[in-house]
């Protein structure tokens, strides 16, 4: 339909999360109209982020270093570890005042999107738990059905390790994302956490 470079651009945008074919076209045409300097700035930002930012080898949060700022901070509490779905959830928990360790699964169980346990950082979590001295694992996956399924899966997998596994209280709006919970709700949800039975 369009010249190949234009079609390529549209296709690339169309693959981004939450971008439909129509929006992909709109963004592509917007970029084509931009002054060259501005579009180069965007291209550079993408390349730079990809080059400099990767994932922390310990907690799988985004990080510029091999081991992220939070993992290398010796003042943080080593007793508890919060398991979350995405890096943005770490930000939400930091705001709510949590000061322990994190582990970012990089998603939740979601058969519709082809995400099974192997696609998540669960193996890495299990290795961590046998190396680090963690007393309590707090499962902070989202309070929706995928997050609940993930929590249940973790509880079953971790049972043999004998670590206390808790789940944040469902004071959060059910069906919602942690990201959208306000700090106070999240703080209460953390305080009201309960032990998860596999």
């Amino acid at each position, binding site marked *: 339909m369009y010249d190949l470079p234009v079609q390529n651009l549209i296709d690339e945008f169309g693959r981004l999360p939450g971008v*439909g074919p*129509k929006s992909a076209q709109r963004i592509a045409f917007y970029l084509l109209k931009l002054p060259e300097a501005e579009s180069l700035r965007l291209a550079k930002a993408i390349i730079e982020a990809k080059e400099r930012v990767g994932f922390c080898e310990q907690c799988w949060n985004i990080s510029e270093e091999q081991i992220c700022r939070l993992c290398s901070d010796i003042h943080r509490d080593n007793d508890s570890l919060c398991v979350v779905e995405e890096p943005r959830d770490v930000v939400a928990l930091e705001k709510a005042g949590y000061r322990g360790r994190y582990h970012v699964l990089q998603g939740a*169980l*979601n*058969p*519709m999107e082809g995400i*099974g*346990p*192997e696609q998540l950082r669960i193996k890495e979590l299990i290795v961590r738990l046998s190396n680090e001295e963690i007393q309590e694992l707090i499962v902070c996956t989202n309070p*929706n*059905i*995928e997050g*609940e*399924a993930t929590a*249940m*899966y973790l509880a*079953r997998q971790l049972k043999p390790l004998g670590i206390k596994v808790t789940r944040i209280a469902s004071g959060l709006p*059910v*069906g919602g994302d942690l990201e959208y919970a306000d700090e106070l709700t999240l703080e209460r949800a953390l305080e009201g956490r309960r032990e998860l039975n596999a």
Partner: protein
Amino acid sequence: MIVTQLWLIDFRNHTSTELQLDSGVTLITGQNGHGKTNLLEGLSLLNGHKSFRGATSESLVRSGCEFAVIRAQVIRHRREHLIEMKIVASGRSRVQLNRQIVKRFKDLSDTVSIVVFSPDDLELIKGSPGIRRNFIDEVLLSCDKKFRLVKANFDRVIKQRNNLLKQCRGRLSKELEESLSIWNSQFIELSEVIGSNRIQLVRDIEPLVNTFYSQVAGKEEQVNFRYETTWMDKGLDQALHEIQHEEVRRGTTLVGPHRDDVIIDLNNLVSRTHSSQGEQRSLALALRLSEHAYMAQKIDDSPLILLDDVFSELDEGRSKRLVECLPSAQIVLTSATGTIPVGIHPGKKLKVLNGHISLGENE
């Protein structure tokens, strides 16, 4: 609850329609194909449910347009509300209530309650189990916020579960079995809530249907409801276990509330197969009237009633008795011929011609 004003823009064959509704009865006349039912459909969408004609967003938008707009002014419990709906032909539709975005369309049910009587209602009795399940669920979704959440989660869990079963390709590996048992526990929990809610609703409306049936049919007869399920007695856990092999083979969920039926017996005979067309019609009307009565009691307000060309299908006796049963509510009705039974007194008459509205003569 009443709808005072309605605007339709590029909705079906209505390019730009604005009309005011009577707080009592509004009669809409016009020949078939000119847009009477489209207008009722526009009104019916205000509770955020799907079209009673089963239409897709694409078919709701006037051909050649990207989106349709429905706006309405609603008064409920003496407070005014503005509903603005943008129906996008291909893409995400949006809705605002008093200029605030509403995340789930069905949450509009907290503001707008509607009962639609349509000639297709005969299918409630004659049709497949899915139509009756849908009827029950729609009533619950209209007046129970919690059920709305449970149903949304259930629909999602079953999709995830079906996907997982498809991934098996006929063979259940150890990993997939582990995953399946995780999804099963949520599936079971939600199914039980849905099942018990449906059974409670069926119990609640049974006496109402009995009363309305005798009134509409003009004779005393017994209506019984039976919630038919293959899993409740033995428990869904056990039922899933028994059918697992077959589910893996066919790659889909074979047992649960999405397979249940509500059997309606008339004088101890299954109405779907054993009642006459006339009895089935009376039953369908009794169901709609009961829906209204049930909702009115639950929400402490009288839902808007939409009657889509209902009287043309009824004989004189049934028409007359239906009119006697109609509760006090705002009513909008369509008629091709313009003849309506005695006992209905439209405060306003509108004519539809080629998607345009004009004021008919008032009584």
